């Protein structure tokens, strides 16, 4: 387009510009750098020579080519930013550090217990029997038998009180997951999350991610 404008006579140029007055969006929508430079150069001519509402053209030009300008400006401003870590000649002088978390950890007596959004209840599994004489095979059999048996869960202390207050939700989730959770025999093992709905008919809800089972009690 720019070549055409440069080579053409002034009359031809006016004809081209006049033909474009019906397509102002065509004039301004192209975001190519070469085109909008050319377009912005001849827009005032188009406005004066063809009688197009100059304000409208300027507005259209500002709106659309303005977008092109802003994009390009952002691009160049990004490019102008010096690379923060190293340059071609100079190695990096400083390493960024990861900030420490702002979460506060506190400790208090269980007497002052208040339930937060999430409550974790720590439980110990029953003590292991020390039968050194028994063989590995016997131990395996015992473990298998234990797994097959119906688990009896007896919570104590504040955990028992809390379980009672929640209508047995903790016992229920431990019973359901006794094979994986093993009554908490592995330190740091957890059960699926139990969500307690206070009002309404639903008392508690267990969403078991492992087995994809949703239970409503």
């Amino acid at each position: 387009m720019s070549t055409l404008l440069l080579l053409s006579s002034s009359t031809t140029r006016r004809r081209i510009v006049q033909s474009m007055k019906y397509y102002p969006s065509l004039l301004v929508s192209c975001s190519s750098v070469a085109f909008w430079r050319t377009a912005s150069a001849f827009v005032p001519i188009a406005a004066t020579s063809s009688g197009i509402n100059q304000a409208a053209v300027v507005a259209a030009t500002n709106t659309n080519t303005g977008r092109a300008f802003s994009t390009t400006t952002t691009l160049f401003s990004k490019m102008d930013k010096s690379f923060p870590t190293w340059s071609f000649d100079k190695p990096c002088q400083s390493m960024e550090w990861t900030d420490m978390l702002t979460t506060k950890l506190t400790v208090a007596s269980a007497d002052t217990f208040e339930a937060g959004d999430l409550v974790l209840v720590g439980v110990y599994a029953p003590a292991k029997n020390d039968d050194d004489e028994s063989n590995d095979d016997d131990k395996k059999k015992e473990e298998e038998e234990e797994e097959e048996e119906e688990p009896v869960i007896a919570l104590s202390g504040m955990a028992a009180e809390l379980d009672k207050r929640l209508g047995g939700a903790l016992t229920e989730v431990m019973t359901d997951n006794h094979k994986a959770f093993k009554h908490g025999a592995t330190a740091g093992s957890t059960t699926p999350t139990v969500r307690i709905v206070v009002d309404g008919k639903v008392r508690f809800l267990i969403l078991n991610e492992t087995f994809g089972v949703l239970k409503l009690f």
Partner: protein
Amino acid sequence: MKTVLFVKKRVRLILKPQHRKLMQTKRYVVVGLGSTPKDDDDKKDDKENVGFSLGKAIAATCDAEKKITSCSVLLPAALEASTDTMRDISTGFYQNLYSDNRYRNGDKEKKMVENLKTVSLFSEAKGAESTGPSLEEGQKIAKGVFMAKDIVNAPHNVLNSESLADTAKRIAKESGGRIKCTILDKKDCEKRGMGAYLGVARGSETEPQFIHLTYTPPSGKVNKKVGIIGKGLLFDTGGYNIKTQMMELMKFDCGGSAAVLGAARAVGEIAPEGVEAHFIVAACEVRYAAKIFLSGMTLFVFYLVHSMTQFDAI
């Protein structure tokens, strides 16, 4: 009457607004603490393992449960509320919430426990209230862990001998005068006859930086002196004895220096009494360079001559 409904598929609950409000209620998770300790020996072993495991479990659960702002942890009386246990819980919690977002942007950034403000431990054991300072100590240790992870994770175009020396200076500055930082440059090392170190550093883009951090206790009384030395080879290609495999992992060669500077940061924060600690890192890298050390060359180490055939073994 109890109603049980089983849905044998993973489900997405579509709820009415009034029911959705009801669903935003408390969440409960049971955490295992291991088998009940029988005797004192068991309790000792238990203390060492349970704290970190519990801290890790708290961190993982809090991160998994989105949009929670507070978390309460109920601990049974059987778990002794000692300073060691509380410190381990705190360290385990904070160090497992490390996420290195320094070289990530946009969706790749992984923010841990964004909304979580407080985690409250409620212990049934006696004297739990007095263990508050040990939680802070655990957080300070975790700061050191963060430092070590930052150093190991940093790519080599960011972490060279100069930026590692800068890190050491910042650790000293952060300690509020408890740690003094001394950096020996190339000339200082030459004066001291540190030939082995300089021989390796000839293959380095940046000049060698011998880092020495000295911690002195606030009271000034020293009963014991401790020295901690870590390997500060920030990238090891092996020189002409080039590594034939796992070259991309060679930035991890500075793991020793990461542990040392991490420990320095933690010690500077905790400020223990009666101990003077020295943290030493000889920082450089081994690339290919015109000046690089070749097989058969001799090294002058403290005015003794050594002939080296295997460069990578230095």
